[in-house]
C-alpha cells in the first residue's frame, strides 16, 4: 500500500477510535452523569464554628445522587467533625453525611453520595456544610466570589434509553459550551481535509 494512503487510513482509524472509545465507555459504563455544576473557583471560604456554608442549585435531571465539593485542610491540621446536608427548598433534610477533617486533603475533591432523589428535575436544593465539633485551623471550601461554592452534582442514569438521550445531550453541551472554539476547530479540520482532497490527486 502507498505510504500516503496508509497514513490517512491510520489517521482516520485513530480518530474513529478516539470517538468510539469515549462514546462506548460513556454509554456502557458511566452510571453517574454530570447534572449541574459551578466549576468557577477564584478562592476559598473558611468554615468556622459560627458559620454554616450554604449553596443553592437547581437540578436538571431526576435521580441526583452525588455531590462533590472541593475542600481544603492543609496538612490534615483540622481533625474536627463536620456535617454535609442536602435540603429541599422547603427546608426538609433529604440527605446528611457527617465527615471528618481526616477526609480532607490540600485541597481534595470530597464526594457525598446518597440514595437517588427520584423527582429532582427542575427543583431547587440547598447544600449546607457546618462544623459539629470545632477545631482549628478552619477548613475551607473552594468558591467563586460571584457564583458561590464550587460544586458538581451528578445523577444516576436508570436505563439505556435515557443513557443514549443523555449521551447525545452531552455531545450537544460539549459543542455549545465553547462554540467559537469549535467553529475554529471545525474550520481547521475541514481545511486539512480540503487540502488533502485537492492535492493528493497529484501524487
Amino acid at each position, binding site marked *: 500500500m502507498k505510504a*500516503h494512503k496508509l*497514513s*490517512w487510513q491510520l489517521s482516520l482509524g485513530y480518530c474513529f477510535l478516539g470517538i468510539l472509545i*469515549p462514546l462506548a*465507555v*460513556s454509554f456502557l459504563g458511566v452510571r453517574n452523569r454530570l447534572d449541574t455544576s459551578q466549576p468557577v473557583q477564584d478562592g476559598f471560604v473558611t468554615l468556622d464554628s459560627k458559620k454554616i456554608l450554604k449553596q443553592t442549585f437547581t437540578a436538571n435531571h431526576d435521580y441526583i445522587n*452525588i455531590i462533590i465539593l472541593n475542600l481544603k485542610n492543609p496538612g490534615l491540621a483540622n481533625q474536627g467533625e463536620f456535617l454535609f446536608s442536602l435540603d429541599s427548598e422547603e427546608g426538609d433534610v433529604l440527605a446528611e453525611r457527617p465527615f471528618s477533617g481526616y477526609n480532607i486533603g490540600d*485541597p481534595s475533591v470530597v464526594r457525598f453520595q446518597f440514595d437517588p432523589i427520584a423527582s429532582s428535575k427542575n427543583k431547587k436544593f440547598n447544600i449546607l456544610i457546618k462544623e459539629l465539633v470545632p477545631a482549628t485551623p478552619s477548613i475551607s471550601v473552594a468558591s467563586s466570589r460571584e457564583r458561590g461554592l464550587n460544586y458538581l452534582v451528578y445523577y444516576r442514569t436508570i436505563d439505556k434509553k435515557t443513557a443514549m438521550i443523555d449521551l447525545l445531550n452531552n455531545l450537544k453541551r*460539549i459543542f455549545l459550551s465553547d462554540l467559537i472554539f469549535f467553529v475554529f476547530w471545525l474550520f481547521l479540520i475541514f481545511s486539512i481535509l480540503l487540502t488533502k482532497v485537492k492535492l*493528493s490527486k497529484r501524487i
Partner: protein
Amino acid sequence: MSIFVCNIIKRKKQKMNQLKKFFSSTTGQIFLAALFLRVFLAPFFFHTDIKTIFYNSHFFSEGVINIYEFLAKNPDKSYLGEFPYPPLTYIFYGLLYFPLKVILGPGFPQWLAMGNDAVAIPDIFRYLFFMKIPLIFFEFLVGILIIKLIKDKNQAKAGLLFWFFNPVNIYAIVLMGQFDIIPTFLTVLALFLLLKKKKAGLAAIALGLGGALKSYPLLFLPFLVIVSSKDWRQRIKLFVFGLLPYGLFVFPFLGSVYFRQSSFVSGLSQRMFLLGLNIGFEEQILLVVLGLTFLLLLADWKIKAPENLPGYFLSLPLVILAGSHFHPQWLLWATPFLALLLAKEKKLLLPIAILIIGWLGTVFLFNDKFLTWGLISPFDSGVFFFPTVRELIKNVFEPKLLQSLFHTLFSASALWICYLVITHKFYESS
C-alpha cells in the same frame, strides 16, 4: 512602492506554490494526515500533568524565579505538587504561559488553580488544544529531522509513518500532553548535527539543552563524546560544551536546598537505582547502571564512526525502561530512534510490536485512573467514579502478575532490540 508590493506578492505566491508542492508529495500527505489526527484528538483528552506544569510555571509571570523555594515556602500554593523538573522547563513553560493567557482568556489561570478533577468546565477543550500545540510543533520538527537523517526516500517514508502513527506518540503527546517530546527533539537534533552537519560541538550543546529541560539527555552525552573524537582533549572539550547549557541554568539554583530536594531527586534518578542483585553485606549490583556502563564501554570499544550512534541512543533509554518502573512518556525518548531503525529493517516490526504491547499493558495496569479513564474525562466526568483497570481485573487475574508479565515482554523485546542494533549495522548507510 508598487515594485516593493509586487515583490512581496511574488514571494508569497512562490511560498504558496512550494507548500502546495510539498503537500502534493507523499511525505507532505503523511504530515497532513498526522496534523489532521492531532488537531482532531487534542482537545478531547486530558491528563493532570499538563495542567500541573502550567500551574506551577505560571508563577514565573508573577516574578517568581526560584519556584522550588517558592512552593516549599508557600504550601497553600503548592497543592498540585512540587516542581520536579530543571529550571529551564520552568522558564520555558513560564514564557509559554504569556501568549496562552492572552489567547485563552482570564478563565485559563482560574482553571489552572483548580484541582486535578476540574474537567467539567466549558472552555476546557480550547485549553487542552492550545496547551498541546507547542508539543505537536516539536513532534513535527522531529518528523523533519527523521526525513533528513534517512537518505533513501522510501525508507524515510516508512520511518515517518512509524514516528507519527505509533501508539506511544499519540498516547504521550496527543492524549497526555507530555513535554518529553522537547528533550527528545533535542536528542534527535544532536544526532542530526553530528551525522549530517559534522558539528559535534553544537550536538553536545543540544544535548546539554535537553538535559536542562529533563535530565535524561545528559546520559547520551558520554556516547556522543566517545564517537565524535579519539583525542582526549577534544573529548573533554565536547563534554564541557554539553555540560555548559545545563550548568548555566542549574548553577544559580545549586545553593537552594529546595531545588536539590525537588529536582535532583527526580523519578529517573530514584528509579534507575532500584533494580539490583543482592551480593550480601548490604551491597547490591545496580543492574540498570551496569547495563549503561556496559553500553558505554562497548561504544568506546566498537564504534569507529559516528554512524552507529543512533543504535546507542536507542539502547540507552531501552535499558533504563527495561529495568525500571517507568513513566509512560519515557518511551518517547526511544521512539525517534525506533523510527530510524524500522525504516531500515522491516523485520524489526515484530520485536517493536511486542515492545509496544508490553508498554501499553504495563501502563494501563498502573493504579492511576488518570492514565486510562481519566484521559476521556472532559467528555464525561462520570468516568472518575470508575475503578482503575487494576482494580477491575483483580477478581479475574492477579494484576501485579499481569503487569509484571507485560513489563517482562517489554524488557525482553527491548534487550533483543539493543542486541540487534549493537551487533548489526542497521544505521550505517543512513
